Each structure stands twice: as structure tokens, then as C-alpha cells.
């Protein structure tokens, strides 16, 4: 099941050139672009690992593509996303976020039912990948 989070996730995977154009859009608006990766695909996982610092002072998006490719080399089997932060409001608000790298096979999510007091049922989802320990979730 292809993970659909963030922008462009219903489009075919972005090429390096697509990434460059999108990142350039962010840079031209003064947003800081950063690269993050994780192997926990849960939609509520807001703690992705940072790949280096956000790029505050790179005028050209080639640097973003460069970092994405460096990240792919080191964490090729994980999810990688590109974020754009806007600091103009006084706090860092995410303006853009899109996935640029994903594992070869994505097992998807299962529905978890938990029996609660009075036969109430609580529902949640869990990625099949999460059954494996961190670092062993994707080939």
C-alpha cells in the first residue's frame, strides 16, 4: 500500500527535477527547506529524523536535491521527505511537505481493535512494518 502523506502523494513519484523545482519554489519564498527520514510510517508520527540542518542559506535548490540523494544513499530503504518551514510568522510553520523516498515494499496498515470497559471497542491502526524493531522494518 503506497503511503499517501503530504503534497503530491497521489501523483507518480517525483523525479529529481520535480524535487528541484518544488524546493526552488519554497526557497524563492524565503522558506527553509530540510530533509527528514523515518521508518515509522504512521500518519501521526511527527518525529522524523532530521537529515542535517534545515538549509537556511542556500539560494539554489540543487543543494536540496544533493542532500536528498545523500540521504537516499544512507537511508535508501526508509521514507524520506522534504519540508519547507516558514519562519515569517515568528514560529516555524510547515508550508510544504512531500515524500521523496519510500521503501521498495510497503506492507500497509492493519486495523487494531481494543476491547474497553463495557464492551466498547477502540479502533486504531498499526503499520505491519512496526512489528519489526527499528532499523529492521524494511529490507
Amino acid at each position: 500500500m503506497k503511503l499517501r502523506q503530504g503534497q503530491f502523494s497521489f501523483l507518480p513519484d517525483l523525479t529529481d527535477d520535480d524535487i528541484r523545482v518544488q524546493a526552488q519554489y519554497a526557497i524563492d519564498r524565503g522558506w527553509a527547506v530540510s530533509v527528514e527520514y523515518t521508518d515509522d510510517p504512521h500518519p501521526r508520527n511527527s518525529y522524523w529524523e532530521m537529515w542535517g540542518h534545515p538549509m537556511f542559506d542556500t539560494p539554489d535548490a540543487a543543494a536540496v536535491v544533493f542532500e536528498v540523494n545523500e540521504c537516499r544513499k544512507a537511508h535508501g530503504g526508509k521514507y524520506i521527505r522534504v519540508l519547507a518551514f516558514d519562519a515569517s510568522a515568528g514560529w516555524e510553520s510547515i508550508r510544504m511537505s512531500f515524500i521523496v523516498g519510500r521503501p521498495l515494499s510497503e506492507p500497509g496498515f492493519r486495523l487494531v481493535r481494543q476491547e474497553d470497559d463495557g464492551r466498547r471497542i477502540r479502533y486504531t491502526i498499526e503499520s505491519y512494518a512496526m512489528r519489526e524493531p527499528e532499523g529492521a522494518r524494511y529490507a
Partner: protein
Amino acid sequence: MNAEIQLPATVDLARSYAESGVADVLRELDEQLIGLAPVKQRIRETAALLIVDKARREMGLATGAPTLHMSFTGNPGTGKTTVALKIADLLHRLGYVRKGHLVTVTRDDLVGQYIGHTAPKTKDVLKKAMGGVLFIDEAYYLYRPENERDYGQEAIEILLQVMENNRDDLVVVLAGYGDRMDRFFQSNPGFRSRIAHHIEFPDYTDPELGRICEIMLSDQNYVFDDAGRRAMSEYIGKRRLQPHFANARSIRNALDRARLRQANRLFSTATGPLDAAALSTITEADIRPSRVFAGGLDVDRATKETSA
């Protein structure tokens, strides 16, 4: 409808020259930089090559991006940084770099102090320079053969790798004194082969320095009087023979000191109100007191005497 992209049958080089705005950059180069005839010639040739290459690419003849990395060799103060700025502008107008900004760095910006510190530092600089031109001043300091654990080698390796793999993204210009750059290239053959354009910057002649001097002054709204101009040209001739002569940079420093003396002179001698002409005239009295006329700096004289 024909879905295939139609390649143009002919190209008009004169038009693409005019449209790219390269002429403006070359004219600026001619107007703003005194002398440097061989450098201007090389830049004009390079521009012609790039325009033809661009036209070839439009017609589907050329393959891949040309190697644009350059090395500028020459004595201090011969305008290497200024020319690098113009080159960045030129490449931007021709579409070879996307942003056309110039990032000037030295060894300190690339090489870290401890293990593992160099790679991120170098990569940061490279990322900043992407889409523009990276100008590495005194590049030979990167390589220190006397210290085999020096981290400069690591920076060189990353630099070479990015110069090769990200050729479309950035242009690297290495600059430094001629003889030391030659030795640097000898010990790092990887650099020599990745650099297509070696441009040598000649020293300025005395009349050229005189003209540079006038331009610098008029930029700051100062003028020489006749005696002052004569004193300055004498100064240039004498300064050249003394150690640490740095062409235009020496002239700029001399002018700064002349302005200081002029301010002091006005302050101590003026009795009544001064007009604009008095405030902006550099006279003989502001230049003659220079130590250059007395035979150089005290420290230099001292070393000369002990060695004699």
C-alpha cells in the same frame, strides 16, 4: 500534429549574443577594469565558446554540459575576485548557472579542526554555492604536504567529487599566486584535469595603477591636485620595488592613509570654514609623508640592514 520537438534549422549567433546580455557584461568588464588585456581576451573567447556551445545544444549537436571550472593565477591585488564576480554574472546570463551568485571562501571555510568536522563544513559551503560560482581564494592552502594528518585532503576529495558529479550545479574557481598554484596542481593532478580554463592575471603597469587610483578616488568623491597626482605616480613607482606590494590593493591602502593625513591636515591647519573643494582635494602634502618615500616600513628596513 507533430509531437516531436522541432530542432531549429539555423541559429543566429549575433541574436543569441544580443539576447543573452553577454555584451553588457563584457562592456562592463572593459570599462570597469583597467588593463588586464590577456584576461579580457580569455573571457571573450570563453564567452564565444559558451554561446556557440549553447547554440549547438539548441540544435541537438552538443552532448552534456561543458566543464567550466577555472583557475585564476596572479599576484595579489590583480583583480581576481572582481573578475570572478563578472564571470558569475556572465555564466548566469548564458544560463550555465541558475543563480549567478559568488561565494568566496578560503581554507578556513572548508577545512574543519577535528576529525569529522571537515566533510559537513565543505558540503555546507558547496551547497551554498550551488547554482552559482564558488571562488576558493588561495586554494593551495588546502593542501599541506608537510602534515600528513591535515584535514585539507578530505576537503579536496569532496570538492573533486562534487566538481565532477554536480557539474551542472556549480562552477568552481580556484585562485592564488602563480608559482604556488602550479605546485598545488602538480601535487593534485585531479584538479588540473578537472579545470578547463587557466587564466593568468598579469601585474598592472604604473600608468594603469595611476588610472585605477584616479577611479578609486573619484568613487569616493575625492580628487588629486596636480602636485598630488605627480606625488602619487612617484609613490607607485617606489612602492612597487618594496616588499608586500599588492597591486591595486596597495594603492587602495595608500589612498586610505592619504585620506587620513588629509583629514588631519585640515583639522590642524584650517582656520576658517572649508569649502567642498578643500574637503575633497588630496594634495602633495597628504602623500609625501608616506614611509614609502623614506625607503619602506621600519621593520622592512631593519631586516634589510641585518641581512646586508
